[in-house]
């Protein structure tokens, strides 16, 4: 075995000098959330960096809804799930159809629609929230899950269409031509050739849209307000409004709420990073 030279040791030390602060900076809020989640109430506020008696009791309280703040926890969890999956599915459907239409069928005006979509992508979401909130009221959709689902589809679709169109443009035209020669109809071309070839991008976009809707706070907070129709992030925000909130339970709920996206992210990391970095900034 070769011993490292002094210079190599020095380089490694320099890297550690960056790596350790980066690790601490990244982990502090997440660790703090975890610490509250495993601390009994008397330990949570003591400022200790590890509780004397770590416990999973808080999770038990949340799962069995043993605190009046958590009455509707499972309903809210279900709301979050349904809204995220519906928004993801609908975005995927709308964006795939649009990208196929623009890129493969060369529909007249398609490019125009693309640019309009891009324009929406760049309008800050918080700015669109104000007029959208009011028009959801006009449509009679306030406090209805559809309002949030449709708002999320509106926000996710432009980016989805754009990424999918970039990917579609890379598919060879010959495939379409060959399939058409063999007598495939447009729909068969879409279903049997296009969708299977686009699978990796579709996974990336589907994941993106699901996570966007699951994580969304602002639109959920504006559009939904009944205890039984709100999503988890809104429920978490409502904890703040009370003076006597059980913070350790809030952090436990937050931890449970943060787990699915983290898990999904790591499960689909391969697709996500590729899709997002390719899509976000074209260098």
């Amino acid at each position: 075995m070769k011993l490292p030279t002094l210079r190599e040791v020095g380089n490694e030390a320099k890297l550690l000098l960056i790596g350790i602060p980066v690790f601490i900076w990244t982990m502090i809020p997440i660790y703090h959330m975890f610490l509250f989640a495993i601390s009994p109430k008397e330990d949570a506020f003591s400022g200790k960096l590890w509780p004397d008696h770590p416990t999973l009791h808080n999770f038990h309280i949340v799962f069995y809804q043993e605190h009046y703040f958590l009455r509707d926890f499972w309903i809210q969890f279900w709301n979050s799930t349904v809204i995220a999956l519906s928004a993801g599915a609908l975005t995927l459907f709308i964006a795939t159809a649009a990208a196929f239409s623009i890129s493969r069928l060369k529909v007249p005006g398609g490019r125009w629609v693309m640019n309009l979509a891009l324009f929406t992508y760049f309008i800050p979401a918080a700015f669109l929230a104000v007029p959208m909130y009011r028009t959801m009221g006009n449509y009679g959709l306030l406090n209805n899950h559809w309002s949030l689902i449709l708002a999320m589809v509106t926000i996710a679709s432009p980016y989805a269409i754009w990424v999918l169109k970039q990917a579609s443009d890379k598919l060879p035209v010959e495939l379409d031509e060959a399939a058409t020669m063999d007598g495939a109809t447009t729909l068969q071309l879409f279903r049997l050739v296009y969708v299977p070839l686009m699978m990796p991008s579709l996974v990336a976009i589907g994941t993106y849209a699901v996570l966007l809707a699951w994580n969304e706070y602002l639109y959920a907070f504006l559009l939904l307000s009944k205890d039984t129709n709100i999503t988890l992030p809104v429920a978490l925000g409502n904890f703040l409004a009370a003076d006597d909130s059980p913070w350790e339970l809030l952090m436990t709920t937050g931890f449970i709420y943060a787990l699915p996206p983290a898990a999904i992210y790591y499960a689909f990391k391969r697709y996500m990073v590729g899709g997002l970095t390719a899509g976000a900034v074209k260098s």
Partner: protein
Amino acid sequence: MAITLSGDQALPGPPLSSRLTPAQVWGILLLAPYLLVFLAFVVYPVCYGLWLARAPANYVALYNDPIFARAAVNTLIFLVIGINIKMLIALFLSGFFAQQRTWIKWLSVIFILPWAVPSIPTILSVRFMLNPEWGVINHLIFSFTGDDGPNWLNDPTVALTMAIGVHIWKSLPFWTLILITGRLAIPHDLFEAAEVDGASWWQKFRFITWPSMQTLYVTCTLLSMIWTLGDFNSVYLLTGGGPADLTHVLSTLGIRYLRLDQLSLAMASIVVAMPLVLPLVYFMMKRLSR
């Protein structure tokens, strides 16, 4: 195949259906769902909102509202200071993460976490850490110095700084990731040649890395500006706009007016931001849609 007749312009065109190929009809049908969403949830709301905000009185009222002026200044601080600090750190860290080490690979997996987890629990977590009475930070300050720590979120300057910190915490991984991709695209032999010539790390950065990444860096900064303008969570969840409405930014201010049932003021506060947003959007569209 269309049959071309001379003087064909003078004749009324054939009906639309016969001019379109079946593929194009499908194209329109498949594009229709998105167009419907766009018309119903972007065009109509925006036009309606602009119509509500049309009266000049709204802008006079905004101009006279000290909270608006403060929010505008806060937004500029957020954009100019926050984003530049964030992008510089991201540029620096992209160099760190581009190093080939197993432990750095593992660290990069952890480093992505702030971006992968939703903002609300983590921002609330920071909010609890900064609690003046029982927050962990003031506990630590007390145990080291015996003095009570500051009331972090009670001073607008400190509170805004903390909100910028939260924003950086949340979005740093994404930009670092993008810049790593940019760095990895630089041909490696350029660095090897420079090393043979005895270039220092600064020279390598100055003459190889920066020129190759400059465009990407500027694009990222501009895109980040647009997104930061829409960042509602960092401020709202950390400070709620307080103390005394002094830490609002334009995105939380619009929502504040909305909650106070002043929709036309809410819209007006967004319209006022448009001279800043539209050039950025225009630039980004030009970059991305070529």
